[in-house]
């Protein structure tokens, strides 16, 4: 009884924080993979996730399909709509997260828009995250001022910052003492596009001066060279659209897909 109570109130995010610590000791950059839950289907998605783990991915960001994903670019958006058409939602996304937890060792970050969480209710959402093994939560349409809506449940919330963020916004993120900060690398939505390198470096340094949290750079990272370019300024990179494109390209040849994802991960990890 007491043990259950303790488990129930365990603060999430410990596995993620530990993973960052290990990587720091090894002087490695974290490779964070974003993948949409249960798209193209549950089994193939699980295989892809295992392949990512084999390829050296460190953390997994699991997306929950939503009807109106306005922070996402074309490629990821297609995955949202495909998921919605297949009847995916937050409940099924969390069920799938539990399968992922059983199938691999990757610490799990759930990526969901706010409305499905609001409908589920915060209590139930936090409880279900715990039982599904979700370590942290990213809500792309909750800016820093509204993150408080998810407070008080022991959820590890990952704040986002953008190149346009003012110093006071950076300070708001730092004050949360998060497991890491998700630094959006472009003025835009998720997708593949090259970055103005110096500008990104200045921006990462600006965040670094204010926060001790690890910094993960995401949105627009697709090439190993990009990973190398930001090695000094970022502690990790998030790869999303680039993986989604590989999945789209090879899903009709499911026997090949995991191997290709694994190789892509290895190539990215090698340069990190």
């Amino acid at each position, binding site marked *: 009884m007491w043990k259950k109570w303790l488990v129930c109130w365990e603060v999430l995010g410990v596995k993620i924080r530990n993973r960052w610590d290990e990587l720091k000791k090894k002087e490695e950059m974290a490779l964070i993979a974003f993948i949409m839950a249960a798209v193209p289907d549950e089994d193939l998605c699980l295989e892809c996730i295992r392949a990512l783990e084999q390829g050296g991915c460190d953390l997994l960001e699991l997306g929950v399909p*939503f*009807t*109106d*994903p*306005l*922070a996402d*670019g074309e490629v990821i*958006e297609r995955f949202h*709509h495909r998921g*919605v058409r297949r009847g995916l*939602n*937050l*409940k099924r996304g969390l069920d799938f997260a539990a399968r992922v937890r059983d199938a691999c060792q990757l610490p799990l970050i759930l990526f969901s*828009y*706010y*409305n*499905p*969480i*609001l*409908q*589920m209710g915060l209590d139930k959402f936090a409880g279900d995250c715990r039982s599904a093994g979700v370590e942290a939560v990213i809500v*792309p*349409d*909750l*800016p*820093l*001022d*509204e993150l408080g809506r998810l407070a008080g449940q022991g959820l590890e919330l990952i*704040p*986002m*910052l*953008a190149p*346009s*963020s*003012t110093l006071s*916004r950076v300070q708001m993120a730092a004050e949360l003492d998060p497991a890491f900060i998700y630094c*959006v690398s472009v*003025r*835009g*939505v998720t997708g593949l596009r090259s970055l103005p390198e110096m500008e990104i470096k200045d921006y990462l340094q600006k965040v670094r001066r204010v926060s001790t949290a690890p910094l993960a750079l995401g949105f627009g990272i697709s090439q190993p060279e990009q990973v190398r370019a930001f090695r000094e300024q970022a502690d990790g990179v998030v790869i999303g659209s680039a993986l989604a494109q590989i999945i789209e390209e090879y899903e009709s040849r499911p026997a090949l897909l995991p191997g290709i994802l694994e190789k892509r991960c290895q190539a990215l990890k090698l340069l990190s």
Partner: protein
Amino acid sequence: MYPDERGYFGRYGGRFVPETLIPALMETEQAYRELAGDEKFRQELQLYLKDYAGRESPLYFASRLSENAGKARIFLKREDLNHTGSHKINNTLGQALLARKMGKKRLIAETGAGQHGVATATAAAVFGLECTVYMGSKDMERQRLNVFRMQMLGAEVRGVKKGSETLKDATNEAFRDFIRSFEYSHMVIGSVVGPHPYPMMVRDFQAVIGRELRRQFQEQEGGLPDCIIACVGGGSNAMGIFYPFLEDPVKLLGVEAGGCGTAPGQHCATLSRGNDGVLHGAFSRLLQDEYGQVMDTHSISAGLDYPGVGPEHASLRERGRVDYVQVSDREALDAFMQLCRMEGIIPALESAHAVAYALKIAAALEEEKSLVINLSGRGDKDVEEVARLLGGVGSEN
């Protein structure tokens, strides 16, 4: 005074957008607050509204419609007579001036029926700005005329073939563009929806409708009208005409599109049938399934075919200040034809919803009351669609 500093009307409103966009919204809010207090800006906007858009719009006593309907004296606030054919121009002129003040070179808009798209393209043309309009491909088909108008005005119309292919998805796409381009672009949201400061800003620009009505009614009839009726999709024409009367003993009625049935997907009666939710940057009421996925909607009128609604309406509903009711596709069509035949006015199908409910009230009145309908737009854009639905122009309904 609503909204509060964080953009909340009671518990509704706020800013639910990616962090990336927050600086752009803060910049917009600050520029708007500076302009709103600037006498020169007010005069310039006033000048454009008068000499360019043709304001003020008349308040017309619809005597034949009234006589036929029952005991009501029905007045029409003729927003259909504005340049570009609807109330949308009130807002786009204001926001285009704001964009110019912020040094933005380009306007982005989402549009359903195309009225807001046309009004934005128009404002862009007159102020020498670039313009991109997002429109669902389903809406492009049923509102072809407005697509051509926007193109003639120099706007680029981008069809959105995603999700439900209507206003909701066009809005997502416009937001994505805004997130990418806000350094040189301003997003002209066309209704009292979206993240703060949009619901406040659009309401303020549209409140000219209610202020004029107040003065006109006083001059023509004396006192205040008993009741004001307006259609509600996102809710900008309703908010604009209601706002100056919120503290007065005037009954305010918002009419939503009841579509062709009460099942999910058959209507877009967000306030009547939805619940709390977040869409397009605001916490408001929303049509959604039990898992928080936003629902497909239906209305005969593309401008009302939207699963969300402005947060201030959600708040007015909760406070009981405004009553929100529904009218079906069929009733709206009947009212459309009645206004054509009785008054020689072809209304927009959106506005026909307000007319339909006014006729219902009038038929049930036991003593004489004055009803004002916000005739938010004209129906040229709907002529083809209505003819199709009625099986030919010549047929009787």
